């Protein structure tokens, strides 16, 4: 019933060789096999966005993609993206603006916001709201998150 597959992928710049069951999701592989617990499991059916990670440069739901599908892929998680400093300004804005409370949605929220900000444009508040509307936050009511993302967009654009 359970078939195992050998996979090789790059995670946060590191080559990883793994052996996974076919049914194992990417986020379970990251969390359980590699102890990269910064990606969170909130709903396991693709609604909450807590498991958001980057695969080959695009954000995906870590619960809706299987680890075996990521054979050969480049995967980036909140741990790796924090260490490279890519989103240091965004993280600082979240901390100063209290754009997080329990923090469970935050890694996914940051990766999603960074995707919007990477375009280099200054999005409107409605644009920001729409872009993060696949990431569930029960604590903040979103207003502070929109503030933080907006502030970083303006700062990056030199405004």
């Amino acid at each position, binding site marked *: 019933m359970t078939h195992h597959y050998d996979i090789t992928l790059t995670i946060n710049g590191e080559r990883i060789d793994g052996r996974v069951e076919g049914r194992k999701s990417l986020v379970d592989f990251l969390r359980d096999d590699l102890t990269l617990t910064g990606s969170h499991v909130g709903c396991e059916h693709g609604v909450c966005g807590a498991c958001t990670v980057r695969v080959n440069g695009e954000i995906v739901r870590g619960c809706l993609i299987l680890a075996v599908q990521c054979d050969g892929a480049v995967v980036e998680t909140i741990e790796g993206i924090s260490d490279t400093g890519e989103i240091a300004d965004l993280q600082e804005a979240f901390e100063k603006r*209290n754009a997080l409370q329990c923090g469970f949605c935050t890694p996914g929220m940051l990766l999603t916001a960074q995707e919007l900000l990477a375009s280099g444009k200054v999005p409107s508040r409605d644009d920001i709201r729409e872009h993060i509307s696949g990431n569930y936050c029960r604590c903040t009511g979103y207003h502070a998150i929109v503030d933080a993302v907006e502030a970083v967009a303006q700062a990056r654009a030199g405004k």
Partner: protein
Amino acid sequence: MKIVNDLPSPLTALDRPNSYIGRAVPRPNLQRLTQGRAQYVSDVVLPRMAHVAYVRSPFAHARIKHIDKSAAEKARGVIAIVTGAELAKVITPWVGVLTHLKGIKSAPQHAIAVDRACWQGEAVCAVVARSRAEAEDACELIQVDYEELAPVTDPETALDAATPVIHPDLGDNLTFERSLDVGEVDKAFAESDAVVETTFIFGRHTGVTNEPRSIVADWNTGDQRLTVYQGTQAPHMMQNLFAKHLGLEEHQVRVVTKDVGGSFGIKVHTYADEMAVVALSKLLKRPIKFVADRLESFVTDIHARDHRVKGKIGINKDGTITAFEIDDLTGIGPYSVYPRTSGIEANQVVNLVGGPYACPNYRARARVVFQNKNVMCQYRAVGHPIATAVTEGLVDLAAAKIGMDPIEVRKKNLYADDAYPVTAASGIKFEKLSRHASTDKILKMMDYKALRADQATARAKGIHRGIGFASFIEVTNPSAAFYGVGGARISAQDGATVKLDATGAIFCHTGVSEQGQGAEAVIAQCVASSFGVSLDKVRVIMGDTDNTPYGGGTWASRAAGIGGEAAWQAGKALRENVLAAAASILQAKPDDLDINNGVVVDKGTTTERITLSEVARICYFRPDTLPPGFQAELVATRHYVPRTWPFSFTNGIQASYLEVDTDTGFIKLLKHWCVEDCGTVINPQLVDEQIRGGIVQGLGGALFENCLYDERGQMLNGNMADYLVPMAMEMPDMEIGHVVSPTADSELGAKGAGEAGTAGAPACVMNAINDALRPLGATPMTEMPFTPGRVLKALGRV
């Protein structure tokens, strides 16, 4: 949006040279959360740890005739399969009643159902395996032979003679009933110029914490101790309950709570499947982990609200409210939840209806009944969203009936700001509120006149916008009157222990806990301010029953007002101790010294006498150089519990501006305002964000959230695709303002702020919708959530 750095505020009476009171300093240690380096219970891994999954009843009510484990026992990775009867030898059942809720009754509840399942989702068998996936695989192989029993699902008929009694030993399906009759209600209605009656219906909600309930229990048979890592709001309460039901001494149990992915009242209760985890650990002598998946969360995390309230208000032509009357009915599932009971929400509704208004005539009845659905219990703003919607809904309907502006009616009846202290008709006591100042402030913030003009302009173009208000009161800083007097071992007091380390930094150990509200920051601010160090020199230790003073935890908006005051007092006490040591070193008088920014100075100056690190060095490493007979005490503990008032009521008002699409029934929230008075504001940013988050939780209930059940007791939308929660796109920007009326019960004067947003938001959205639809002749909407279908129905379009 520019993020402005926090600046020291002008001095207040509470200010000391290092005062952080009233400042929007960022929470310490947030990088842990933004970098994915937190440790939630779902992240905890221990050696020899096994995972449990549960076979759950597919029926709302069924006798368990036989459980066949044979195929599952042979499944890969399985360690043990345990039935309710087997586990009952390890853990005793409980009954969720409190003595101060007169007459409340419930039946014994087991960790795993023994011979009968009473709701769809109740665990009937546990499978422990090496991985969660293997445990779930084996659950599929367990054959349970059920005999389906008649379910009780409709609260309206739960008390009928023809309805089966869920727990025959109790005699009927009535959990709790409370009645109140104050003043001359019938006379007041008879003499009123107008009387309005309607029924308000509230959906069943659940918390949907982003991290589901999680627990790892580790019974170490070598040292005969149970360590429980649990995402809980009340570590000491859980320590007591685990010990009590496993037959252990409390000191044999340690509860550790690290990061918690959201709580909102969901994680302050006893859950049968979590009690089963501690019992399984004791039985199997190894760590056991349980993390609820989202689907089981929907059928096991407590639900709340689900009230039907018949309401009646009397009013005179001049706007004077003459009487309120309510009849509340709520169905709470098959058991009253342990240990806080499921009678509190209805009790709060009775306490709070009419609360903002100086109306002496009030009659109320609340009935709480059993049913075969998931259990209901206390969830953020317990009872407040219901009481506020009933009160404010009735006030608006009455205002419309006599043709008066809703604000004018409120101003006419709100207690005057100089009337306090006041005892309301229901008996609740207000120390000091600011009803009129709050109302005036929100009108200014929203520019009420301009908004009415905008509404009229839009209306002329066929765009239907509405303005709604909700005055509210909120119970915070509870004393022992909430639970302790009813016999529950839930601490109302809280403690703080502060100590000077060997380098001059401060550790503060506190009984309150953190689930994201910012309690850690507030405690650090209080200690830094009263002791006299910068914030980066304070480290807060919380969420560990071995290492914190006994306390209640974080719920009922108590952490800042109660835990903060204890920390403030402990910081002061340590300052005295440290100054005594410094004085003995300096051969000075303690009264002539102070601590400013981590340095002992001459009082009233910044003249440095000795650094804290030097005091610490001498006291810890060269005590031989201190005068004979002097012993430095570099640790101090203080406790605090409110004594003058059973609860510290806060107050405020919210306003909503929204647009209703009369073709589709969709509601667009344009803007939301809240003015809130939580006394002394310790950290304005954290208070504002508590209010914003709370508002959105209330908006979810008003517009989207509803646990739908069919007549057989099957939950129909138990997943996040079908149970709708607020997402960013649908939510408005929210403007928050404050009026400050400190409580005199504590030196800090802080009241709670955690639930005010949720208390008022549904009511003001309801009033705004009705304000938008009233000129169209729509039936007033009083059934939440206000779905597009219901809007169209109110308009007579479907």
